[in-house]
């Protein structure tokens, strides 16, 4: 066990860094989607609301693994078969495993971020909007200057949890050959036949990463909070 750890620690560490990078980029996309989606969910236009709800319903329903397969194996070859130049150019980057993983995770997590940010927007007292409107702020200026900044503070902790969910979910990327932590564990297990040790070490890595993240989230949350007293 110790010998194994000594041999493979650097290897696992690189995998962990890759996993963390995947998570960061996916979360960036997820929050961006979540912001747009949440604004859609609270829009005054029924069509926009329906569109946003539809996105959430679909992408919350599709298992991330299935989505990963669709994005990586499905989309580029579909565009290729259709032979439409524009689609091929648009989707061929998904032949890249890492990019496909990021897109799939962001689309999946984006549905959750949409709901988290929507709930946080709706948690802001309507009096804040009234105060802004009474100053002559438009709908969008009110959103940008008053509602969104406050709701992101409210959403910070649940988005932190979502980050952790995405981090654990990146282990799925191993199935399309992204050499993140889980993939590294598989390779180590295959090379040494020490399955239990190989996968347990990966588990320890995940747990440690999640604990560190949790600490960081609650630290930043305190500084970022709407309560200053």
């Amino acid at each position: 066990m110790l010998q194994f750890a000594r041999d493979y620690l650097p290897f696992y560490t690189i995998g962990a860094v890759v996993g963390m990078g995947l998570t960061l980029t996916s979360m960036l996309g997820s929050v961006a989607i979540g912001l747009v989606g949440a604004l859609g969910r609270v829009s005054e236009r029924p069509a926009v609301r329906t569109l946003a709800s539809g996105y959430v319903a679909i992408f919350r329903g599709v298992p991330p693994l299935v989505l990963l397969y669709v994005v990586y194996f499905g989309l580029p070859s579909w565009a290729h078969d259709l032979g439409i130049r524009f689609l091929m150019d648009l989707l061929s980057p998904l032949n890249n495993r890492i990019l496909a993983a990021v897109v799939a995770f962001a689309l999946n997590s984006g549905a959750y971020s949409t709901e988290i940010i929507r709930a946080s927007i709706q948690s802001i007292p309507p009096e804040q909007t009234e105060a802004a409107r009474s100053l002559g702020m438009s709908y969008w200026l009110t959103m940008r200057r008053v509602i969104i900044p406050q709701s992101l503070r409210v959403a910070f902790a649940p988005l932190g949890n979502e980050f952790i969910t995405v981090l654990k979910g990146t282990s799925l990327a191993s199935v399309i050959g992204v050499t993140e932590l889980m993939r590294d564990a598989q390779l180590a297990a295959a090379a040494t036949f020490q399955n239990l040790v190989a996968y347990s070490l990966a588990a320890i890595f995940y747990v440690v990463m999640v604990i560190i993240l949790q600490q960081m989230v609650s630290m930043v949350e305190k500084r970022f909070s709407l309560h200053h007293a």
Partner: protein
Amino acid sequence: MPNESFVRSGREENADRAVLSAPALSTTPSQGAHGAVVELIDVGKVFGATTALSHVNLKVARGETVAIVGPSGSGKTTLLRCINFLVPYDSGRVYVNGQLVGYREERGRLVRDSEHNVNQVRKRIGMVFQRFNLFRHRTVLGNLLEGPLYVLRVPKREALTRAYEVLNMVGLADKVTAYPDQLSGGQQQRVAIARALCMQPEVMLFDEVTSALDPELVGEVLAVMRRLAQQGMTMIVVTHEMSFARDVADRVAFMEGGTIVVDQGAREFFTRPQTPRIESFLRRMSLA
């Protein structure tokens, strides 16, 4: 109804005048010779089955302070909110500085005005709420700069100068970096007044701004409002503070059942109540 309220003269020599006078934003020509800053003509508002306002008429001249009093549910808040169109009234007309609020005339009919035009009117009307409604994620200074920088788009230097002037006026210059939840209710309300004043409004609307305060904090807020009135600010003040109405307001409008039933000089209102209803109201407010 006697509408010929007097506009107090002799305010010009007030030392603080530079801070608070100057209707610098008169972009619209004032309509009508009477020069009312706010005028409501036959305004009505219905919420579902409730008639909140009906046939409300009110005229407020520049520099005037009008107190609006009346029992709970009589429509005071609704009236105030119709002036800046936070509540869209559904009959009659509201003019601010001669400009129709919320609607425009098209071939003799009133149609809903654009959001942009409503905002143009709103930025010239200051409103102070019962529960302060300060921006919780911004410091005192941040609250004061938000409107000037992002709505009026004045240069930062100018906005800062004005913010500090106004903060001095409300006595909170030492609190610039505090967040709202680090302040007492009275301090928060003074910041809220300051936030509105930073927009250099033509008129200030106050909706029971001391009702949510501990009794010992009411005085500091009323003092600021009193000073504002003395400096010539046009003010419409919904209040339960009868002594404030008596001492500071030029006129008192008494509301009941969604309309203004009496509108008269403040002194007369308290010394010679016109109806038994007002008499009993004043007695309940323990001041008659």
